[in-house]
């Protein structure tokens, strides 16, 4: 990783640590700080280091604010970068967001925004969501809407394009018994504007060429989720998602996990995730003639993937390393492998601190 990326990560880590120390000494009514660090490395030689901080603060009994700040420090030696940068290339992404939630009886309204900036891409998002508890809080109905204005730059040129994304979501969460809860959701997303990856190329009549994708895409996702308490302090989680879009990408995602309480301070668990998808209708391994659309984007190829995750959460009774009681340390490792030959390992370490 280049020195600039290391400096960026060190700066963000130091800033987050100062923020953490300062916040710990502040007497808030009902607040929480989550600080996490993610390290991603894959078989292409890409490394991403991502410190991330989330603050939640209740200003009153009815109004809460959540602030998020995160960084992705990316050291990339992938094929698309190595074509022009034999020694690899570095990038950095900074994302910040604010959500305000206000309660109205059994209903909650959240308004917020997020801004993400990196080399060659910016994204600005506004979102609104509502939820309402029904049936003695055994049923929660939720819905949301988000609009994003994204601006990719067609590096190495200075040309920028525009992309508009509209996203709507609805869900019902139901507690069936004292041991069983489910959630069903539907999400629709409409993206208009430039949607070609400017860095990924494919063979068109033998010449490696940047792709050309349609400028409209409608995406549907349906989800069903289960959380089930089992005997002996063990919990089952099962999530399924069905996805379809107008580029003919269909996918199924199933994840199954088990968690177990080892005493009062330790929770351990593992999960397996299986993902399958079909190719976009205009995908070909290579193109001849004069195709209208063509792509070298691996996300539009047909493939399957499997991943395994192990997770450990420690919540010492007396607090964690001098932090207040209720503080928790989370360690997680995920191994991901797809039929395209892509493999990745992702480590996450996180600290959650309740602030008085």
């Amino acid at each position, binding site marked *: 990783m280049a020195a600039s990326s290391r400096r960026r990560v060190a700066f963000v880590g130091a800033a987050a640590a100062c923020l953490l120390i300062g916040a710990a000494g502040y007497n808030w009514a009902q607040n929480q700080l989550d600080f996490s660090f993610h390290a991603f490395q894959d078989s292409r030689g890409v490394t991403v280091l991502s410190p991330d901080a989330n603050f939640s603060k209740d200003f009153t009994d009815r109004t809460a604010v959540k602030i998020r700040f995160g960084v992705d420090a990316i050291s990339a030696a992938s094929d698309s970068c190595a074509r022009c940068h034999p020694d690899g290339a570095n990038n950095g992404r900074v994302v910040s967001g604010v959500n305000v939630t206000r309660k109205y009886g059994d209903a909650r309204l959240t308004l917020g925004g997020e801004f993400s900036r990196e080399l060659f891409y910016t994204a600005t998002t506004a979102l609104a969501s509502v939820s309402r508890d029904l049936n003695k809080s055994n049923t929660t109905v939720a819905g949301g809407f988000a609009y994003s204005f994204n601006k990719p730059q067609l590096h190495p040129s200075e040309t920028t394009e525009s992309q508009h994304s509209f996203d709507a979501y609805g869900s019902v969460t139901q507690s069936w018994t004292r041991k069983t809860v489910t959630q069903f959701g539907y999400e629709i997303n409409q993206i208009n504007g430039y949607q070609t990856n400017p860095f990924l190329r494919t063979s068109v009549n033998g010449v490696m060429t940047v792709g050309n994708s349609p400028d409209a895409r409608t995406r549907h996702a349906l989800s069903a989720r289960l959380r089930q308490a089992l005997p002996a302090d063990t919990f089952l989680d099962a999530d399924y998602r069905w996805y379809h879009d107008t580029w003919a990408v269909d996918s199924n995602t199933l994840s199954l996990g088990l968690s177990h309480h080892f005493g009062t301070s330790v929770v351990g668990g593992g999960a397996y995730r299986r993902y399958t998808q079909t190719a976009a209708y205009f995908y070909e391994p290579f193109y001849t003639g004069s195709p209208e659309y063509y792509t070298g984007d691996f996300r539009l190829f047909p493939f399957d993937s499997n991943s395994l995750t192990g997770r450990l959460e420690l919540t010492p009774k007396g607090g964690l390393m001098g932090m207040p009681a209720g503080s928790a340390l*989370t360690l997680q490792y995920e191994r991901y492998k797809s039929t395209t030959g892509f493999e990745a390992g992702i480590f996450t370490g996180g600290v959650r601190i309740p602030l008085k």
Partner: protein
Amino acid sequence: MSWKTRVALALTLSAAGLSATGCATVQPWQRGLLADSCMVFDANNTAAYMTHWQEAREGSMGGFGVQGGGCGCK
């Protein structure tokens, strides 16, 4: 909207509608296990990061809440 989308949407809405009828009632004093972090959807921030990088590698997205603008890696 294709027939597959319609069928899947109908099934999900039916399941969601059945949930919303409130045919099961757990009393507040019976909710101890339901409050355990293992029983809460999206209880930790780690899930958000996992979703972020999975969506950077895969052609599908969504299903569990509204999306942000994403990143250039998508």
